[in-house]
């Protein structure tokens, strides 16, 4: 039982950063823009947050500016793919390289620095509930925020006027246009908000999870976040679940190895990716394709 609790707790700890990226990407992709540059946004967020926290000592400044720098990175993506109409996949990769370079360069002086950042807080009363308490309520503040964020994004997407407009932009932008809104303006906002989320996810990674900075700290988590959106069929709650699944596979490895089981962690690392493919096949079998129409254009004739 202790083992299960430990794995699940760490699943949430490790999955939160990816969850932020993924939920942000749900918003962006619902508007019809896929942003592989989320990896770059995440890196920018992680470094900015780390640097500001180290400098000011207040992690909240770090989170805010981390989010903003993530948003700025995705603003480049938005400009190039929306205004300049460039290929979304190629642009995303270019932004990813750009983010890797710029953070590795400016981050080199922060390597080997340890900061306190956000420490886990046990929520009063809730954390006393057996098992559930220790799984869900012994985390840092950004993890709690991510748990709050999911229902908020869900409500926004599926029960508000702006959520409908956002989804309509991804499905049929001429309808949005006829409705008197600018589809491009909505896409810009969606992509930038998605980048902000990715930046906060990066911040969670550097100031709440690892408390340190290293070159390419995200190790592909941004790309994973983008892919999880497909796994999640563009729903925020499933995206978060996918992120926990990803975190869980990592947590399981750490826990098992900590108990002296000797096996290759690499096979376990593959699981989330293979699972995603299996889900895709099953989704395709049902004949129900939830991919926003605008994204289908990006992926050719699907």
């Amino acid at each position, binding site marked *: 039982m202790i083992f299960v609790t430990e794995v699940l707790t760490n699943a949430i700890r490790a999955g939160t950063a990816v969850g932020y990226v993924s939920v942000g990407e749900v918003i962006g992709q619902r508007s019809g823009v896929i942003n592989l540059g989320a990896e770059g946004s995440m890196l920018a967020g992680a470094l900015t947050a780390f640097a500001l926290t180290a400098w000011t000592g207040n992690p909240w400044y770090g989170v805010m500016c981390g989010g903003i720098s993530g948003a700025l990175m995705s603003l480049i993506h938005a400009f190039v793919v929306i205004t300049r109409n460039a290929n979304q996949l190629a642009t995303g990769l270019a932004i990813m390289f750009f983010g890797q370079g710029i953070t590795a360069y400016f981050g080199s002086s922060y390597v080997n620095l340890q900061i306190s950042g956000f420490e886990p807080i046990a929520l009063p009363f809730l954390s006393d509930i057996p098992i559930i308490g220790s799984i869900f309520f012994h985390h840092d503040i950004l993890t709690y925020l991510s748990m709050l964020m999911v229902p908020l994004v869900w409500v926004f997407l599926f029960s508000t006027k702006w959520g409908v407009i956002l989804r309509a932009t991804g499905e049929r932008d001429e309808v949005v246009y006829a409705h008197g809104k600018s589809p491009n303006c909505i896409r810009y906002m969606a992509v930038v908000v998605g980048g902000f989320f990715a930046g906060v996810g990066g911040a969670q990674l550097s100031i709440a999870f690892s408390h340190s900075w290293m070159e390419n700290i995200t190790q592909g988590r941004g790309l994973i976040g983008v892919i999880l959106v497909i796994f999640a069929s563009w729903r925020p709650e499933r995206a978060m679940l996918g992120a926990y699944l990803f975190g869980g596979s990592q947590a399981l490895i750490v826990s098992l190895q900590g108990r002296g089981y000797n096996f290759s962690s690499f096979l376990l690392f593959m699981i989330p990716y293979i699972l995603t493919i299996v889900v*895709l096949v099953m989704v395709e079998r049902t004949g129900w394709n939830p991919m926003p129409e605008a994204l289908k254009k990006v992926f050719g004739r699907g």
Partner: protein
Amino acid sequence: MLAKRVFFNKYSIGTKITMALGICIVYGVFLYTQGANPFLIYYEMFQATFGNVYGIGEVAIKATPFILTALAVAIPARVGLISVGGEGQLACGALSSTFAAVYIFKDMPSFIGIPMLLLAGALGGALWAVVPGILKIVARVNETITTLLLNYVAFFLVGYFIYGILKSPDAYGWPFSPRFSDSLRLPTLEGTRIHIGILIAVAVAIIVWYVTMYTHLGFRMRVVGGNVKAAKHSGIIVERMQFVTLIVGGAVGGLAGVIEVSGIEGHLRPMTGVGYGYMGFLVAWMAGNHPLLIIPFAILLAAISVGGNALEMHSGLNSSIVLILMGFILIVILAIGKRGGK
């Protein structure tokens, strides 16, 4: 056709020079703010890449995998498929050729061993491409997503073997495969690191170009890429075409892997060729998937990354500063590139 919409042909020489100068100036200002002399740095970068034989060789070595992974993208692109699987195909090509080199062809003489090794690598890459191929044809799952996902699986697969049965006992605990025997290393130009890989890459590019432009098969490929309905009505089995191009693309991607291990490193590491697949995707995109235009663009990106290493040595700036330049150039090209395209 694809080739006409290429960035390369689209702008006048003047526009291109202005663009290049603009990039140099902006990046130069950035270098200046970092306390370096931009003129000196540009000179060093030029010296390190095209300034002497050694530099040219390094660029050629670096460009080789980019050409092949770009072709791995460009071949499926001919029938309208977007594959991002170069990364995984390279890894699997490297892995299968390492297996072949360590267990099967260990004591073979070069003239049999090396072709067999290349074959093994191509086979590995092709097999890796079978998965998205089958998923595409049977289950109708989008190939872009599956190839992207499989890149990670391939990366972990390599790690699994390198930390497992392929781990060399003589590597002092490092995660390296056993070294290839000398007869299985690609022949190099006397006294340099330049190996025949670049010739293989260029030859493959020319073959792909010839096949797609001047053969019946290539024509049918382009018909599928142009209009699936028209292709179906004229009796082309579209699914088979898509499957075959994915596999051939995979085989070419696998070749990049063999050449990396057998030509340069001599053993497989977990990080062998990581990132080259994505680089290839960008090269293919810049070249508009034209098999021959891929070569100059691969050389361009190779020169930038080789120049970056020189930057680190001479100016003391972190080598990652060149990734900034690379990203910046790509973003500018994408932003200025074809408007109204996809």
